[in-house]
């Protein structure tokens, strides 16, 4: 099939960007979306033009590196699918495809389709962990975790940190991302000890690093390639409320540093 692409080209973070019209000819239905771009890039290079810069690595939908808005939808039209797992059989000959980077204040464009997502690392660094040192821990079966709790934790922990939820949100909120980590750890007995402190720190970090608030659009769930559900945001809110109530009752205030 032959396609017309409109691709966001931007030299650097402080340059003006624009949509560039490019041809993608002889595209096979078995190609992945990124392989289609590889082919376009090969032609560009041979013509002495700069290839389209885009993030990608594992190409099996788990590293979270790929990040493109395709025809207005982060990761493209297929549900529960990253760009790298989207295949060209879902497009047809003659289609026009618009390809843009994640757009959010917290994710400045680095070049073309590549953005800087280090703000997500900062949210995790603020408290998205269990404070355990290496060594000196109990036997793995010493603390039992009912299957349902382990499954809930896993549902939330499946987040690949790609940032599509933020790119899709009208408020550019990182609620789903943050909620997934808060919920994963809050579902486990090992994570309960720090649950109140964690939710306060992570929420604070989220607001601090340029992300907006949640106003229940649920666009995040719709585009999440791992199918993370918005009910985890409810869980986050619940954990946050609990932490707030506790902090007024006790002297041991879980402060957001």
């Amino acid at each position, binding site marked *: 099939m032959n396609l017309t692409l409109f691709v966001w080209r931007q030299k650097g973070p402080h340059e003006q960007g624009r949509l560039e019209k490019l041809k993608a000819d002889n595209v096979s239905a078995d190609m992945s979306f990124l392989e289609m771009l590889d082919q376009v890039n090969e032609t560009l290079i041979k013509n*002495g033009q700069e290839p389209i*810069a885009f993030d990608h690595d594992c*190409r*099996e939908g788990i*590293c979270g590196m790929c990040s493109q808005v395709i025809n207005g939808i982060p990761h493209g039209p297929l549900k529960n699918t990253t760009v790298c797992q989207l295949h060209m059989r879902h497009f047809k000959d003659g289609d026009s495809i618009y390809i843009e980077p994640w757009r959010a204040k917290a994710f400045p464009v680095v070049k073309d389709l590549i953005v800087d997502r280090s703000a997500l690392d900062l949210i995790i660094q603020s408290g998205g962990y269990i404070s355990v040192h290496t060594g000196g821990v109990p036997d793995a079966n010493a603390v039992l975790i009912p299957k349902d709790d*382990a499954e809930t934790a896993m549902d939330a922990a499946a987040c690949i940190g790609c940032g599509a939820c933020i790119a899709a949100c009208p408020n550019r909120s990182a609620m789903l991302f943050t909620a997934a980590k808060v919920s994963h750890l809050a579902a486990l007995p090992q994570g309960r000890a720090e649950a109140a402190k964690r939710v306060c720190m992570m929420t604070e970090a989220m607001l601090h690093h340029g992300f907006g608030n949640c106003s229940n659009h649920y666009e995040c769930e719709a585009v999440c390639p791992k199918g993370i559900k918005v009910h985890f945001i409810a869980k986050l809110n619940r954990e946050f409320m609990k932490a707030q109530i506790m902090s007024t009752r006790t002297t041991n205030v879980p402060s957001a540093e």
Partner: protein
Amino acid sequence: MTLDAKIPGGPLQEKWGRHLHSLKLVNPSNKRKYRILVVGTGLAGASAAATLGELGYNVEAFCCQDSPRRAHSIAAQGGINAAKNYPNDGDSIHRLFYDTVKGGDFRSREANVYRLATLSNNIIDQCVAQGVPFARDYAGYLENRSFGGAQVSRTFFARGQTGQQLLLGAYSALSRQVKAGTVKIHPRTEMFDLVVVDGEAKGIVTRDLVTGRLQGHAADAVCLCTGGYSNVFYLSTNAMGANVTAAFRAYKKGAFFANPCFTQIHPTCIPVSGDHQSKLTLMSESLRNDGRVWVSRTKGDRRSPLDIPEDERDYFLERKYPSYGNLAPRDIASRAAKEVCDGGFGAGGQGVYLDFSDAIRRLGRQKISERYGNLFEMYEKITGEDAYVQPMRIYPAPHYTMGGLWVDYNLESTVPGLFVLGEANFSDHGANRLGASALMQGLADGYFIIPNTIAHFLAQTAPGKVSNSHPEFRKSMEELHASIDRLLSINGRRTVNEFHRELGKIMWDHAGMARSADSLQTALKLIPELRAEFWKNVRITGSGTELNQELEKAGRMADFLEFSELMATDALHRNESCGGHFRVEYQMPDGEAKRNDDVFCYVAAWEYKGPGKGPELHREQLVFESAHPETRSYK
């Protein structure tokens, strides 16, 4: 130079304990004076950086990706082994040790493997404490499943995303140390050179992938945790960015490269669909717990698999290896699949069927979906086929490399102060790695081994001996600048990918799943020709002072073009078949690998001798005190 593996004395079971006792320590208040560089943030790198940070060292971690969480360990699917024996099915540290040595076809170092098996249990405890959501049963206990090369169920798993969950555990420990100020992360930064001063590793030179800036980082010790080199085959299950550059440049600075020809071809990957293909996707080995592998008994059978009746199917793994069946180890299963495909029995030309219909009948679709749902989804996305209805088509693909930089028992390379962890080293898997053992090794190295052994090294060296203004840093940066300028000035007609594809084809055809002296000699003729053409005819657009993905690929490609020659040289010298190294001249009458323990029971460690000169071979003899080499049989 004689290679001293520094294996401690005493019985196998006591070596690590005794060794720990003999290692020197660094006083807690002195630890922060030492700077340690950790290159790579996969399971080995992230766990090492986090643990060294916790201990109080001043750690800097580097990764090519935009976040340490994206290292390729994240893609490991099936699980992690440990000798917990929770299912009470006869497992023990000794059995895990023995299975691993046997699985590696008696080409690994016994003492290292025993230590690995011992530490396996600590890893599971540690990961659970970090909040890794391993699969549990309804009572809350941990579940296990089986992997190839074992007759016990010792594999712990988190759905089909075990690597992801373990890496996120290590990444969370790392993030905690970043906040504590003990670890600094350099994302989108690639190591370009190792800096050696007075014979010791004293730092690295990196390139900032966003600005193109080269920078020297001085340190008291360097840990390379940079993974494997399967991408030398172009098509592999590795991430696109996985490369040999860091390890190879360390090799050029004096670190010996061990057993480069030991590469693992994984039996269950989605077959190639066309020339556009950029990578191959693994379907976890765990699928062979419930899936049955077969081909038609008729050559060139074009029927749909659903139309081939039961009595016209050849379940060749169950037929050839009745006691292990579909869970034969990877090298064996891959070769068996290649054999039936070469014989013309392949499914639609290339590939064999992996069929779940029996398991679905026995356990129900729900149970299969619970176990492998995400893998079935991934398969459908890539192939457009529903594996609940028709069998998967699978074919072997390059997946893991057992070879790597030579290290002693302390994980220290032949360059003092340079430690190598995880897949980047050679030590634990011999000539073939068993499934679910890579995660175990990466984490054992990072969490439990390196913190002890690096202290022993540091305790004997004064901190901060060298700064990055040392002439060696300047010299290295000048050379790197020159090499980048040279690449950019060629302005030829072929892209980096075209060269990579061609190198991959040379390696797959002549140094892949089956090798011969003839094919390897052909490879050794073709590689230098391709390399010469690369340096004359590659085209890289853009400049070196910006984000330039073509330039990144070209630098890695240049190293693959040299490294591939070392790999073929090693394969040619090893006149035996063992594990993943199958030389067609050396096989049993029934087609199984024929080892030659009298001559080749050693680690081949290659020393770089300078440009245009061949490498020099050093041998570390392997001595087996407990697991006596026998003919490996899974029949």
